[in-house]
C-alpha cells in the first residue's frame, strides 16, 4: 500500500511532464490543412507583368507542380527564397509563384532583386483566391499532383529539410 501511494503521484507526474514536453515541441501555428487530398480550388488570375494574360490552374492538369505563395512585404518569404530558387533549379517540377495581396510593382522589384525562380507568377491582389486555398500565413507552399489534388501543404517558410524529407519523396511517389 505505501508503495502504490508513492508510485501513483510519481506516474501522474511523469505523464504530465511527458505531455508538457511534447507540447513544447509543437507549433501552434501549424494547423493541419483540410485541403490535403482534395482538389486544388480552381482559379483564373492575371499574370504578374502581363496583366492582360490570365492563367487558369486547370491548364496544369497532367503536371506535378509547386505553388508558392509569397509577397514582397513578407519577411519570412525572403528567408525561404533561396530554398525555392534551389528547388526550381534542381528539379523538373515547375514552380508557380502566387503573389498574395501585394502591389505588382513591389513584387516585380522584389523578384528582380532576389531572383525569380518561378515559371509564372499569378497575382491575387485582393487575396480572394488565397482565401479559397486557406492561406493565412505567407509564405505557404502547395504540392499539386497530376490530377489537381493537393498532396502537401506547408504553412510558413519552406526549409531544405522539408524539400528533401517531404516534397522530393512525394514527387518520387507520384512519378511512379
Amino acid at each position, binding site marked *: 500500500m505505501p508503495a502504490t501511494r508513492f508510485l501513483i503521484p510519481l506516474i501522474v507526474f511523469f505523464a504530465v511532464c511527458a505531455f508538457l514536453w511534447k507540447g513544447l515541441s509543437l507549433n*501552434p*501555428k501549424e*494547423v*493541419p*490543412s*483540410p*485541403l490535403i487530398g482534395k482538389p486544388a480550388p480552381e482559379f483564373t488570375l492575371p499574370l504578374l507583368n502581363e496583366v492582360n494574360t490570365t492563367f487558369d490552374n486547370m491548364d496544369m492538369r497532367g503536371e506535378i507542380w509547386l505553388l508558392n505563395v509569397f509577397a514582397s512585404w513578407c519577411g519570412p518569404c525572403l528567408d525561404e527564397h533561396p530554398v525555392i530558387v534551389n528547388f526550381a533549379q534542381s528539379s523538373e517540377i515547375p514552380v508557380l509563384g502566387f503573389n498574395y*495581396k501585394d502591389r505588382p510593382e513591389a513584387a516585380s522589384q522584389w523578384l528582380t532583386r532576389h531572383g525569380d525562380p518561378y515559371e509564372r507568377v499569378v497575382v491575387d491582389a485582393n*487575396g480572394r483566391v488565397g*482565401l*479559397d*486555398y*486557406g492561406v*493565412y*500565413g505567407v509564405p505557404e507552399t502547395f504540392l499539386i499532383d497530376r490530377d489537381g489534388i493537393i498532396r502537401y501543404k506547408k504553412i510558413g517558410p519552406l526549409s531544405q529539410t522539408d524539400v528533401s524529407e517531404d516534397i522530393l519523396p512525394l514527387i518520387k511517389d507520384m512519378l511512379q
Partner: protein
Amino acid sequence: MIKKLCLSMLLITCVTSVLGNEAPTLAKDPILEKRVKAISLELRCLVCQNQTIADSNAGLAVDLKNQVREMLQKGMGEDEIKDFMVERYGDFVLYNPPMKGTTMVLWIGPLIMLMIALAVAVRIVRRRSVDDEKKRSSADTDRARELLKD
C-alpha cells in the same frame, strides 16, 4: 524645449493615428452587420490565434469578415458560411470545436477529471470521518476509565 515638445506631440499623434486604424465597418445595414458580428464571434482569426475575427483587425480577419458579409448578402445561412470556412481552414477556425472522435478528449476530459477528483474527495472524507470516530471513541473510553477510577 518648445521644439522638442512639438516634436513629441507630433510623434504621439502619429502613433495614435496608426493605432486608431480600426477595421472599417459598413454600417449601412445594421441588421446585416449584427449577423456578421455574430458569426465573426465564432470564427478564429488564424493569424492571431486567440482572437475571433470580430476582435481582430488583421488583414485576414478583415477579409474573412467581408467574406461573411458577402455570403450573408447572397442569402447563405450561418451553417453554410461555417462549412465554407472549415473546408478551407479546418475545424480550428471554429471557436467552439465540433463534437467528433478527435475532439472527444476535449469535451469529455474535464468531466472525467471532475469525476476522479470527486471520487478521491469522497474517499478522503470518508476515511477521515472513520478516523475521527475511532479517535473519539478511544477518547471517550479513556474518559470513562478516568471517571471509573474514582
